């Protein structure tokens, strides 16, 4: 108990750090993921190829490797002065975007054929078909997998803690170096992660419930 009370501010900082990393990366992943999924079903071949490449490459790369790229290659070659938070958000966000793109794409595939055909037959363009007819319906099937993708993202942000970011993993490292018992630290860190993951789970359950419409 003392470990928690003595270092309450550190724990709070780490908890908020994890939340910030998760939130920012989730936003990046959502936006990029939907765009990439759009690319993958679009009538423009180079975009389709780009989408497929993006998903295949990122899904088969360890996140740690992405972090190495973000922290050792990107500052050296492209943008020298990015802070570690932004780099970590990019690495986590890009990685997760590939999974989001796949979830959205399989969501699009579950929308009944007639919907897209009807949209087309009343003269809608591809963009209109997607944004007005297909995507709103795909949302419902996409929500459950998204929930697990974002929970996985929460856990993945721990890697950012090893790269100069203050988050729960970073806190556990600091405290362990200070000589506190790892078992007690582990207990509290676990509890913190459980709170975040259950919160995400509950949030998505709620969302799923709200979106539930008889078809």
């Amino acid at each position, binding site marked *: 108990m003392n470990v928690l009370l003595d270092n309450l501010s550190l724990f709070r900082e780490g908890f908020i750090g994890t939340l910030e990393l998760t939130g920012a990366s989730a936003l990046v992943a959502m936006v990029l993921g939907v765009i990439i999924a759009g690319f993958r079903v679009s009538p423009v071949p180079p975009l389709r190829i780009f989408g497929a490449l993006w998903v295949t490459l990122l899904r088969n*790369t360890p996140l740690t490797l992405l972090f190495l790229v973000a922290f050792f*290659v990107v500052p050296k070659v*492209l943008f020298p002065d990015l802070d570690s938070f932004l780099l970590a958000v990019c690495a986590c966000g890009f990685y997760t975007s590939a999974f989001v793109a796949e979830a959205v794409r399989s969501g699009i595939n579950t929308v009944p054929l007639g919907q897209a055909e009807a949209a087309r037959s009343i003269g809608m363009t591809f963009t209109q078909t997607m944004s007005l007819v297909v995507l709103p319906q795909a949302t419902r099937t996409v929500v459950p*997998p998204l929930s697990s993708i974002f929970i996985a993202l929460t*856990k993945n942000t721990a890697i950012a803690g090893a790269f100069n970011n203050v988050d729960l993993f970073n806190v556990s490292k600091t405290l362990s170096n200070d000589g506190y018992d790892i078992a007690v630290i582990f207990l509290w860190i676990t509890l913190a992660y459980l709170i975040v993951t259950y919160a995400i789970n509950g949030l998505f359950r709620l969302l799923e419930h709200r979106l539930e419409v008889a078809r």
Partner: protein
Amino acid sequence: MSASVLFDAPGPKARVRNTIYTVAGSAALVGGIVWVLLRLNEKGEFDPALWDIFNYAGIRQNILEALLATLKVFALAGVFSLAFAVLMCVARLSDHRPVRWFAVVFIDLFRSIPLLITIFALWVGILGTMSPFWALVVGLTIYNGCVQAEVLRAGINAVPKGQKEAAYAIGLRKYQVMTLVLFPQAIRSMLPTIISQLVVTLKDTSLGFMILYPELLHSARLIANNTPVNGVYPFVQTVAVFGAIYIGLCLVLSWLATWIEKRGRKAKSGITVASAKEPAASEVAPAPGAPVAADPLDETVVVDKAQDKDN
């Protein structure tokens, strides 16, 4: 639904528009790639001397050793996690309530803790002193074992109920029903998902980087730090080479999963094969669609035949 349903066969106007998009899209892509290449060139990353380091026998030896270290962890963690998964799955489906509850709590708990934190805690010594190698193996085993256990459970739940009932009816014992009837069918139907989770295991071996286990990424960093060429540290080059190795390894495994899935679809064993998608990290793994219930006896015969074909 194929992608082509979303848009018409293009008419003259759409063809022009698509051509414009194609040209613009390609230009943007090529432009982006050229920009990165130019920047790389500007920083002198294409200097042949920097790439030449991979011709040194010592560095090749390092890469080989690192690859072996990664594969060693992967092999052990893969085997142990599957064994552990069978154990957890049996516990999860146990008739004894305490055992079942223990399994539920254990699986739920370790699936929601980041693997990195588990590995770190093991390394620091939550269970006594542990070398980085064993910390990595045990961490991977616990986490992936929990995920694979849920995959197996989904597979067992998807086996038609009649199979189990028939097995009990002909007088098999509980363990016989499990080992002779349920597990073979569950494993067969979930094989693509199991292999996809093995890809995750392989990717997660890279977490050894954080606890100084000399696997691929760790040795990439060492090589980059220790072989400066004319005062330049070859980070870009090592990341490119080691990234290619990782992606190659994972792609081979992913292809295997997809191939087995396609093959399973074609086989007329009456077992519906799950998709080769990664199992969801937190939710119960997606069960394959309701399998076509065939005559149980007939089905086992077909399964045997299909397995004979493998050998």
